[in-house]
């Protein structure tokens, strides 16, 4: 692991901060009394936990955008699919404590007068099955979609636009009540996870810690991928796709492998996100979310991994702050961020730091 991080100063700094936060926050939340100045409220714990999920998502996008050169405008779809898989498990956990008290069916199905659970809901009362689906479903979608797209060599902006169309189509589909995923309202009103109350401070801290651990693991996994032969190949594809093809490599397989892994990672991020925010609905599929994700990575700087995380945390935090303090200003700020970063900071914050360091 140390060998992996040898040339990765940013990664070392980031992981150190992450470890310190992961130790400090639970202690400050659970052990300190509320009047202590260092006390961290449960709200803040969940908020940071949410940001960490965003960071995992940004990491997954940086893998395909920064190292493979594919700008996916539909990565939010994989995130949302993972979230829905987790949400379905949490829905089943409610049991007969719903408004209608029906142990067999979630509330929205009772409301829609459904008689029995649709087949695709079976199995979701087991956490292991749900977790399997969290990676399998986004992975499968990415595989089929990627296979079709990469084999016919759809690249660049075309790929971006059809991924956007994909997430848009999924959003329209999930809005429909007939789909069996709660329609407009999505899945919410969760009670507990693995038998623990989802609202309890301890559960929240556990979810936060899980997010932090997964983020660290994901970072190391991504770092090992980009340092591996596959990573080198994917960078070669990014820089000169035709040349790699002419050298005899199978470009489609390289792209597919990285894309599918990235989608699975996005799914995991969604699965950690849903129990913390307590809701998943079709708006997660909206193209705006996916494109906001792209700007996180652009701001932080692509192709450095830790830059993506930095961008996700910084932009999400400013969003929380701005939408609270000056709701009118947020879209102006976000729009300006898009414009300024692409024109004046094409490599993002981390890229600019690296350039400065190399110059010195």
């Amino acid at each position, binding site marked *: 692991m140390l060998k992996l991080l040898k040339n990765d100063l940013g990664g070392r700094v980031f992981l150190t901060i992450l470890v310190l936060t992961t130790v400090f926050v639970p202690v400050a939340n659970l052990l300190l009394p509320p009047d202590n100045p260092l006390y961290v409220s449960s709200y803040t714990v969940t908020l940071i936990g949410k940001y960490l999920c965003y960071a995992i998502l940004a990491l997954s996008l940086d893998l395909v955008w920064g190292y493979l050169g594919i700008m996916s405008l539909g990565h939010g779809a994989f995130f949302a699919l993972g979230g829905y898989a987790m949400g379905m498990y949490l829905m089943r956990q409610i049991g007969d404590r719903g408004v209608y008290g029906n142990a067999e069916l979630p509330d929205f199905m009772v409301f829609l007068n459904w008689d029995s659970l649709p087949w695709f809901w079976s199995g979701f009362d087991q956490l292991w099955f749900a977790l399997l689906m969290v990676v399998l479903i986004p992975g499968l979608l990415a595989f089929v979609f990627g296979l079709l797209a990469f084999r016919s060599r759809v690249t660049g902006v075309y790929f971006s*636009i*059809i991924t956007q169309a994909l997430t848009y189509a999924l959003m329209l589909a999930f809005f429909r009540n007939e789909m069996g995923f709660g329609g407009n309202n999505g899945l919410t009103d969760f009670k507990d996870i693995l038998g623990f109350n989802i609202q309890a401070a301890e559960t929240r801290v556990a979810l936060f810690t899980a997010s932090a651990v997964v983020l660290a693991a994901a970072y190391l996994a991504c770092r090992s991928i980009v340092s591996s032969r596959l990573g080198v190949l994917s960078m070669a594809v990014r820089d000169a796709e035709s040349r790699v093809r002419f050298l005899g490599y199978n470009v489609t397989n390289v792209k597919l492998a990285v894309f599918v892994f990235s989608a699975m990672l996005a799914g995991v991020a969604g699965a950690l996100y849903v129990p913390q925010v307590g809701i998943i609905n079709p708006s997660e599929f909206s193209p705006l979310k996916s494109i906001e994700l792209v700007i996180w990575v652009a701001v932080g700087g692509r192709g450095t991994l830790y830059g993506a995380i930095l961008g996700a945390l910084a932009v999400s935090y400013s969003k929380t702050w701005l939408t609270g303090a000056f709701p009118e200003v947020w879209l102006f700020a976000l729009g300006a961020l898009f414009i300024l970063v*692409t024109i004046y900071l094409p490599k993002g914050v981390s890229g600019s730091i690296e350039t400065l360091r190399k110059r010195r």
Partner: protein
Amino acid sequence: MTESLDTYKSQRLKEENPSNSIRAMNFKSLIYKWAVFFAMILSLLSGFGIFTEALAESATPSLEETLPDLLTKSFKEKTLVAERIAESADPRSVKLLEAMLNGKLGYIKENKTMVYMNKVDKGLSLTDALTDQSKGTLKKNEVKKVATNNKLRKTLRGLIARAQLANTDSTVRKQSVLRMLETADGVAITALKNQLETEPKKEIQELIQVAIDLNKVRSEPHQSLHEIQNLSSRLEPEVRNALAAIASNETLKASDPDVVDASVKSLKIIDGKVSFYKKLETGFFGLSLGSVLVLAAIGLAITFGVMGVINMAHGELIMIGSYTTYTLQQLMPSQIGLALVLSIPAAFIVSALFGMLIERGVIRHLYGRPLETLLATFGVSLVLQQLVRTVYSPLNRSVESPSWLSGTLEINSVLSLTLNRLYIIAFCLVVFAALYFLINRSNIGLHVRAISQNRQMARAMGIRASRVDMLTFGLGSGIAGIAGVALSQLTNVGPNLGQGYIIDSFLVVVFGGVGNLWGTLVSGFSLGIASKFLEPWSGAVLAKIAVLVFIILFIQKYPSGLFPQRGRAAEG
């Protein structure tokens, strides 16, 4: 993060709510009201001169004698009085019966004068029913309405229709026959037969014959084999109902099987025709949706197709065009039609200016970096949306349609085309033709094409590339503004107007083949028609998803679209 949810919800709502069909439905009742209004005006205009003549020559009691009889409480007697009023052939009778039907006829309690009542702020403004003189305004409790019940109202409708049969306006006559189709019998049929002899218009003659045939089919079905066969050429719903009643009549089946067979046969012919016209109508809806898509995408075909610039703010340029229309209408509220016509050049200019500003400020720095262009212009779109929210309001605004835009063109009783859709189709074709001409025939078009084919060579020939870039982008943006004017006539204008069209527009351009105006036209229309034909059996949302999935698959198979560019330009 919730704002995007609301965005898409409202977008979806808008799409599922076809405001045009509502407008069209209102219009049918409008036609009816107009017809009545027209009749009233005519009867007023003809005035006293005819009135005295009528008095002199008719043996039937005059209105002055008949009218007081309406004071009775019995509905049966009122029916008789109403019939007498209709028989009086007095020009005022139609207005009287209409008022009675609409509950606007009453009498002043004090002196029992029959009056027309019109609601005003404090009570009712009254006009004498016989002399048309104003009787001032009275409180509600000083006047009594001539009450009606369902049966009486039905009779009244029949009487009015019959009275209008002799109207000089052929549309009024047609309407009156149409209204008599379902109920006409006895006296009405005699009136129809009389009218048939003098009716100059062939269309109405046929319609009267249908009413007479229908009456026979209803009253003595076993002897009306010939009529049933004749009726197979008609599309009126009343004909279909009457034939369906016979086709399912069990006793008739036993006694006169050939009559039943004939009506089944006729029904089949009618149903075939109806489904044909329904398909035609769906095709028309598809064409109008397609022309909206083409209008939205054609500007993109310039900026994306010809220049290769991904402009995610294209939808917002459309929105700016719509808001220009809205603003102009606010500036001249009394001249809505003029404002709409003026807003076409105005929207072009405003959107083009915004477009050129975007090109100079943002896109110019990003040529050759398409993905970054996409991101930066997306930022522009967010800023423009928020700008509109701040300047106008986050709420949707409705832009009014001038009267000459709303209305229907009725081909037959099954197929009627709404005028605003027809106009949009025509408008789309005009815009397309103008743009096509500009790109392929004009000097600036030549420069645009030269730059897009070989930038270096074009510059060497003395074309000022960066100026042409700016103008081209301005042109594409201006066309988006014009699309906004058209869209403002179809949906409400709001900050999210553009978002709904951006993905569709890109797909239309990509589907048609980048850099090809014809491709955009063909793909827009075919996508519009395809989704309208899918809608009936899958629902609007599923149809949209199906079209999206189809295009995603299509692009993977044919990455350069329906009409790929060939030759050197294709490699650029």
